């Protein structure tokens, strides 16, 4: 109660005192130019102007102080404006000098950065050149290896071909339009039987070796007889002799699928059948060796 009374009484008193005081100071203590100079100064203070342009900032501080002093002494408005304007110019000068120093610092660090990037560029170029050279060398090596491989393959093929030629020559093989033909004469079988003699076996072994060395070739075994005896007997005998060769080859490790047999009996004679010598020529087994990877043509 007492407190409320006091406040109510005091407030108008204070107000009237303030009004009385401000009434005394009819001269304004600032101008718009001085206000501007003060705010420019604060802005400069908050940036790095004092650090980069200490001398110019000091001169600006002194100029602003002079303007402030003139204002607090309530000097002539024109005089205050004049001093404030001078202070503004000096603050701006300090800011420009600071900007110059900042730009110079940037220039120095940028020049360093530029050198760094140049170096990086050169390193990258050298690296690329090295990579290219390495790639070229790898390519050259690969090409060389390929060429060597091709040469080796050719050499292997040639070696295989000449080995085959030698083996076939040993078997007295003859070149026909159906392929190479090896003829096993009558003497390689026991008379009127389909059992191979030891020299017959030796010949078949050579053929087995050829087939083992040349897995892309197959054989057709064809049996023939002379015209003596019944046709049925001769067909059956020629077939059995051809089968005997296939069985022998199978024993020597050649798959039965690579060997085909055919019994022709007294057909396709190679001699007249009029003499014992000619008839012996007709009793034979012909073995046709296929070309690499190709089937054997049927007898015409």
């Amino acid at each position, binding site marked *: 109660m007492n407190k409320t009374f006091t406040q109510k009484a005091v407030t108008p008193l204070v107000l009237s005192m303030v009004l009385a005081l401000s009434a005394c100071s009819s001269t304004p203590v600032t101008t718009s130019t001085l206000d501007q100079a003060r705010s420019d100064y604060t802005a400069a203070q908050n940036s790095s102007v004092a650090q980069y342009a200490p001398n110019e900032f000091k001169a600006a501080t002194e100029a602003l102080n002079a303007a402030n002093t003139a204002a607090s002494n309530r000097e002539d408005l024109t005089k205050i404006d004049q001093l404030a304007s001078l202070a503004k*110019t000096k603050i701006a000068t300090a800011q420009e*000098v600071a900007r110059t120093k900042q*730009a110079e610092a940037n220039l120095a660090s*940028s*020049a360093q950065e530029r050198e760094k990037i140049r170096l990086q560029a050169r390193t*990258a170029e050298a*690296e690329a050149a090295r*990579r290219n050279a390495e790639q070229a060398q790898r390519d050259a090596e690969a090409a060389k290896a390929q060429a060597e491989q091709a040469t080796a393959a050719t050499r292997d093929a040639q070696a295989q071909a000449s080995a085959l030629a030698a083996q076939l020559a040993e078997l007295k093989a003859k070149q026909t339009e159906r392929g190479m033909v090896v003829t096993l004469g009558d003497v390689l079988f026991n008379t009127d039987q389909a059992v191979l003699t030891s020299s017959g076996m030796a010949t078949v072994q050579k053929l087995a070796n050829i087939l083992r060395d040349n897995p892309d070739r197959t054989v057709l075994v064809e049996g023939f007889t002379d015209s003596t005896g019944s046709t049925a007997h001769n067909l059956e005998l020629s077939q059995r002799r051809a089968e005997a060769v296939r069985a022998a080859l199978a024993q020597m490790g050649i798959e039965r699928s690579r060997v085909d047999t055919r019994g022709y009996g007294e057909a396709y004679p190679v001699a007249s059948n009029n003499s014992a010598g000619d008839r012996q020529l007709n009793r034979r087994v012909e073995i046709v060796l296929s070309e690499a990877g190709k089937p054997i043509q049927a007898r015409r």
Partner: protein
Amino acid sequence: MSPRLTLPAVAATVVSALLLSACASQKAPATADVAVSQAAVESAAQAGAAELAPAELTSAREKFARANQALKERDYKLASELATQAQAEAKLAQSKATSAKATSAADAVQENIRVLREELDRANSANK
């Protein structure tokens, strides 16, 4: 002390020497102030302020001309004030010109760096 004295330095020496005897005469200090401001305006013009800070340089020149006129009219107080303003504005024009040059040099190097980096990136991606 360096024996090579520039015009502003000479003028400043003259000013401080005369300031000591300022009470004796008002004429001499005003003359010196005007001379100093002339030197400052010339220095700013040489620094390229005509192109880089034309407004400031024009204002400084105009204040200098008025200071000269006041000197002729023997208004030494006005002459000194105008000379001080002309000097400050000439100095601002000069520092503005200098900072513009330094900034454009720094910008040019920055641009240079940007282009270099771009080329480097392109070269790197081309070689990958």
